[in-house]
């Protein structure tokens, strides 16, 4: 019962972005992934979430292979990702952005719309209620009906998290949730992540902000040059000489 990444390799031309990467996130776990720029963290996320096929290796989620599933298919199994640079439907409101994140409704075809109007309305109301809850949880009420394109970077990250939540995830891959976010909002986002984790949603978090991540995740993986360098509790990992060398450029 977990995310099982086994021996993933990926090369772009001659450049080996990932070589034999393995890691595991237990169900409901909260695991951090750190590493210097270009270590391959985002590439690994893209491979796990199905945006990029690996050259080698296997990915299993909840005991089932994800091979051959596209991103939307993987999302349906409960595995969702967010992006380093938040993506949103800029002209849709925050509310609509979240509603658009939960496809699979009757009202998605014109035929369904006209022939099953009652069912469409029912589903819309249920979805709207779910969205209201997520918006309340993320404290986005004030901007709920603003176009998402007008929000601040931190708010957009929250909208992304909200979109992920509407897919009913069991594991969320967060790509730099604190990058470009003001410190107050960082605390806020961290609080939300902890709360969600408390409800049983697992997280794998890439983060550049070491300090924030060591506060958040009880377990860290460290990547460098496309490989997993080491893993363990934050204190032990940060004390590791190889990590210091890779991450801090040996400036110790």
């Amino acid at each position, binding site marked *: 019962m977990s995310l099982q990444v086994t021996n993933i390799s990926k090369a772009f031309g001659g450049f080996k972005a990932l070589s034999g990467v393995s890691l595991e996130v237990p169900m409901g776990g909260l695991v951090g992934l750190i590493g210097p720029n270009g270590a391959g963290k985002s590439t690994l996320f893209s491979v796990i979430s199905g945006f990029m096929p690996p050259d080698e290796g296997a990915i299993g989620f909840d005991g089932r292979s994800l091979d051959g599933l596209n991103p939307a298919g993987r999302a349906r199994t409960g595995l969702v990702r967010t992006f380093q640079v938040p993506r949103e439907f800029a002209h849709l409101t925050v509310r609509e952005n979240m509603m658009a994140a939960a*496809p699979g409704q009757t009202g998605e075809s014109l035929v369904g719309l006209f022939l099953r109007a009652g069912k469409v309305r029912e589903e819309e109301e249920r979805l709207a209620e779910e969205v209201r809850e997520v918006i309340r949880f993320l404290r986005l009420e004030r901007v709920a009906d603003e176009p998402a394109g007008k929000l601040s970077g931190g708010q957009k990250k929250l909208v992304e998290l909200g979109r992920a939540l509407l897919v009913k995830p069991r594991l969320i891959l967060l790509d730099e949730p604190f990058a470009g976010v003001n410190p107050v909002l960082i605390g806020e986002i961290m609080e939300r992540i902890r709360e969600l984790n408390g409800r049983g949603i697992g997280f794998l978090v890439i983060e550049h902000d070491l300090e924030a991540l060591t506060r958040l995740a009880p377990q860290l993986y460290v990547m460098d040059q496309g490989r997993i360098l080491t893993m363990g509790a934050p204190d032990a990992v940060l004390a590791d000489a190889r990590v210091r060398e890779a991450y801090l450029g040996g400036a110790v």
Partner: protein
Amino acid sequence: MFYAQLAVNGLVQGLVVGLGALALTLVFGIARFPNAATGDTMTFGAYTALTVHKASGSLALGSIAAVGGAAVLALVAYLTVFKRLAGRSVVSLLVASIGIGFMIRAGLGVAFGHQQQVFNVPLSRPIRIAGLAINPLDLQLATVAVVALAAVFAILYLTPIGRQMRAVADNRDLARVSGIRPERVMTAMWLIAGGVSAVGGMMLGIKTIVSPEVGWEMLLPIFAATILGGIGSPVGAVVAGLVLGVAQEVSTPFVGFTYKIALSFVVLLAVLLVRPRGLFGRIEGVR
């Protein structure tokens, strides 16, 4: 008062342009190319309405047939041509749409001949409202247009499929990874664009004449309205269509009947040079 009367006359013309521009802007926003067959889809709608009207004597039946027929025509064009060209350059799609327009026009010419035809609608005495003479037929046509527009905007802004259409227009990649199915969105969009064109075409046919070229000749004002309204903005398209229709009529005493169509060209150039985003512009929506 004279100008007010011209403006009122221009409103129906403006609705025709607005409906065409709405169809054009929907295709541009979602399928990402300027569909030069929009005008000919309108003509197809006009002929369908004309034929059914002649056979049944009912304009209502005629308009239903026109909307249904043109919606199916647009969908067939998508399934047989545009879908296969998806991902190609805008120019390939544009050229393909010009070709489809030619085919529709030629087909209509073969089927109905090139002589002008008119809708046999009874003439009626204009009613006077606040000193303005209003043709009851115009009032009916305007009502049909407004109902059609209301239906389209209700679908776009109040339903799941409409939300998905706008989502695809905003960010196609994100829509795909969110599990929004592009074929469904495209199917709905083409049906709507075809139906909207048909309403415009039918109005045009009733107000003027029906010939295989009427829709094609409307393409310039339609493009002007689309650009003036901001490419990809449905509200902008309709508002700009109305503005253009009214401006054309009001300009007639100055430039004469023959040249009023040139006004669209002036507007088009002016907008492109001065404010390429248009009135309701969102240039970033058009990648």
